[in-house]
């Protein structure tokens, strides 16, 4: 598997999805080599143990205790999920500046660094691809499974070298991330990956239709495998620890604060809710390129004192925020799947989700809205906060429903797709042999 993030080093749903899927496949006894760009940053707390941590080679290997059948291979690379070419350039420059300072600004280290790191995202993706091919040569495997666009060139190259079948797994598309302001380079990479793949896995029918409609891929080739949810068992937090008064209701936005997630609709709806209710706080948990805009907007709307920004949360802090929340709102403009609502339900928090999301295909016991319908979002928020029987019914039915969405089912569906492809590949070989 070619991926680019894995817990605990995650910044969004992709890592969570890769983890859930890999873990379930591990249980089924499928052997996986998981190739990751190495961007281990020590400020993140870790809850999984890394064995044989990195040597200084371009690729290094480690294992995680709970995943016996998974070998992790990391590639020295600075790939990060949700990067854009522009933000990547910025980050490279920052890194170079930092390293330069650390080395006392000596000219030779600067030169050295420039050969270590690709000068732009495009080069970096291809460097990742080249290293992945090196790796692929040495490894024994049957299928190449690439998660999202940054790994597609690596997938294509590895498939070309080894002749193994390629699956690209689409967790999001450029249209979800950027609306109509599509980055042509990213789009081209995505389309090429989908075209060259033997099978495309989409995380929802919503995404499948984008793949068919916007990328011109034949529907026969595109399968839907919905995500599951990892059951965490509820942490034991009391409200006292949170510093929020018990008579105040908490409405939660949890996700990257980017155009895709619709943070402004959350705030417009908050404004409307506050017209008819006062004992409500709106918590925006997450970070992203629209964070400053969101803070400004809250102030412009005159609800700054009612909106709290927590920054990016992980691990126990996420559990804690769910424990506090009375309601979770996901007003995504375009959400290929959306695991967070499932986690919210798993934590007994009822959810309002946008109809423009993959998760609305699998959830019945959720309130559904069009992301742009601010009035209706506010109407539903008020109803949940005002009528305990509604909250209770959504919670109990939703929690029950979420238990049926297991990663095991997603893994089994992937395994069936693998099986089909291997049979096809084998038959193909036979024909060639004859």
């Amino acid at each position, binding site marked *: 598997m070619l991926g680019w993030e894995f817990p605990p080093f995650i910044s969004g749903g992709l890592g969570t999805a890769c983890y859930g899927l890999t873990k379930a496949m591990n249980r089924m006894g499928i052997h996986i080599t998981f190739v990751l760009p190495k961007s281990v940053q020590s400020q993140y707390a870790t809850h999984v143990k890394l064995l044989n941590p990195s040597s200084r080679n371009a690729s290094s290997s480690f294992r995680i205790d709970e995943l016996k059948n998974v070998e992790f291979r990391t590639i020295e690379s600075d790939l990060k999920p949700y990067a854009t070419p522009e933000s990547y350039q910025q980050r490279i420059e920052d890194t170079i500046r930092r390293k330069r300072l650390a080395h006392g600004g000596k000219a030779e280290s600067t030169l050295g660094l420039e050969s270590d790191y690709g000068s732009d995202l495009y080069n970096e993706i291809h460097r990742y691809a080249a290293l992945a091919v090196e790796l692929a040569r040495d490894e024994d495997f049957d299928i190449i499974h690439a998660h999202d666009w940054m790994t597609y060139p690596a997938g294509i190259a590895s498939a070309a070298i080894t002749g193994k079948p390629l699956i690209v797994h689409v967790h999001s598309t450029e249209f979800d991330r950027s609306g109509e302001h599509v980055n042509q380079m990213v789009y081209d990479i995505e389309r090429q990956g989908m075209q060259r793949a033997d099978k495309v896995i989409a995380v929802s029918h919503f995404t499948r239709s984008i793949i068919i409609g916007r990328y011109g891929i034949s529907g026969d080739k595109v399968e839907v495998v919905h995500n599951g949810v990892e059951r965490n068992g509820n942490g034991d937090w009391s409200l006292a620890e949170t510093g929020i008064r018990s008579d105040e209701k908490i409405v939660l936005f949890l996700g990257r604060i980017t155009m895709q997630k619709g943070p402004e609709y959350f705030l417009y709806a908050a404004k409307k809710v506050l017209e008819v209710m006062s004992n409500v706080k709106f918590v925006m948990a997450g970070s992203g390129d629209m964070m400053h805009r969101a803070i400004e907007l809250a102030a412009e709307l005159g609800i700054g004192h009612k909106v709290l920004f927590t920054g990016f949360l992980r691990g126990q802090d996420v559990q804690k925020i769910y424990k506090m929340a009375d309601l979770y709102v996901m007003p995504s403009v375009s959400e290929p799947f959306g695991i967070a609502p499932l986690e919210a339900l798993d934590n007994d928090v009822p959810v309002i989700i946008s109809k423009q999301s993959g998760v609305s295909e699998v959830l019945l016991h959720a*309130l559904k809205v069009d992301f742009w319908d601010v009035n209706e979002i506010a109407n539903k928020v008020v109803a949940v906060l005002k009528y305990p029987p*509604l909250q209770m019914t959504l919670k109990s039915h939703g929690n029950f429903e979420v238990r049926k969405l297991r990663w095991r089912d997603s893994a089994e569906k992937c395994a069936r797709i693998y099986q089909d492809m291997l049979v096809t590949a084998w038959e193909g070989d036979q024909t060639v042999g004859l």
Partner: protein
Amino acid sequence: MPSVCFYFQVHQPLRLRHYTVFDNNHEYFDDFKNGSVCRKVANKCYLPANRLLLDLIRKFDGRFKVAYSVTGVLLEQLQRYSPEVLSTFDALAETGCVEFLGETYYHSLSFLYSRREFLAQIEKHTDVIKHLFGQTPKVFRNTELIYNNELAALIEAMGQFDGIITEGADHILGDRSPDFLYRPKNCRHLKLLLKNYSLSDDIAFRFSNRDWPEWPLTAEKFAGWINDVNGNGNVVNLFMDYETFGEHQWEDTGIFDFVKHMPEKILAHPDNNFKTPSEVVEAFHPVDTVDVPHIISWADTERDLSAWLGNAMQSNAIHELYRLERQVKNSQDPEILSDWRKLQASDHFYYMCTKYFADGDVHKYFNPYDSPYDSYINFMNVLDNLQSRCGETAKENKSFNLSPAAESAGLQPIC
């Protein structure tokens, strides 16, 4: 010598329009949707079915008979959106072969929450049936065939009715057959007619089901099943929604052809005949007493109240609704009273049912909402507004305190 007794339930709810917490007007009902559904059902079902039955009654010269229970809320809608249906009902009433049953005007569950309101709605319904069709209902059916001993006692005490109808549920009958008349426990006069759900559902639900081994159901085959009752029963009670004809079972399933040929095939056996519920009550003696201490209904396989009151939202919504009774009546505002009563229709609570929600079955088919949650939110927003109106009028009438007599005066028909 089984008699065949048909009774058709005729009802369309008044659907609410999308009403948010930010709305503040008194237009709760979706006139456009209600009008278009009413006209659609009139064209697909009420008009063709009424005409067909009228033809059959004339053809068999008084030997083919049926009964209807038409709710007040539908009669109001027909008056407004499809008056030609009313004139065909009137023509049916004139034949003398059609009986109209009594029920609550608003298709409500008021029996469970307010006896005073329940009796007022029966009276209002009786008045409108008298006014439109010149008959005083003598047989009572409660909304959704909800029934228990207490209901029978209450209806008997009214003095108006000779018979009452409910579901022939297995668990109240044991090994007894629904094809006889029974006596409700603790009643001396009232007789109980029980729905033969097996034969009724063959028409209402299974008629067009190609996976059903008996498909296609012909009039001849069905008449054969009626003949089989000969010697084992006095009356086969076939009770179903009138919308079965043309709406639940579309015309192209052959349902109208089935009805067209059925009387002839049934009457082909000399021992068979058709009777209206009142004639059945007149003709037969009760064979046994039926004891129903717990409430039953005709819904789903459970035959209980769970389709309307099964979850926390449903029970909350209906409790809040009936909690307003005094406030509504104290307001002395006929519009508030009428809106409050229209909100009592069982349909509003049915839409909030989460049972089977996942299966996308019959519950979904009849539901104008995307989800039970949406329907609850909408209903509660409307109720909230209604309550605020009561408050306003109460302030205006502060000096005036209502006597019980005046209160019941507020219960007069307000068509």
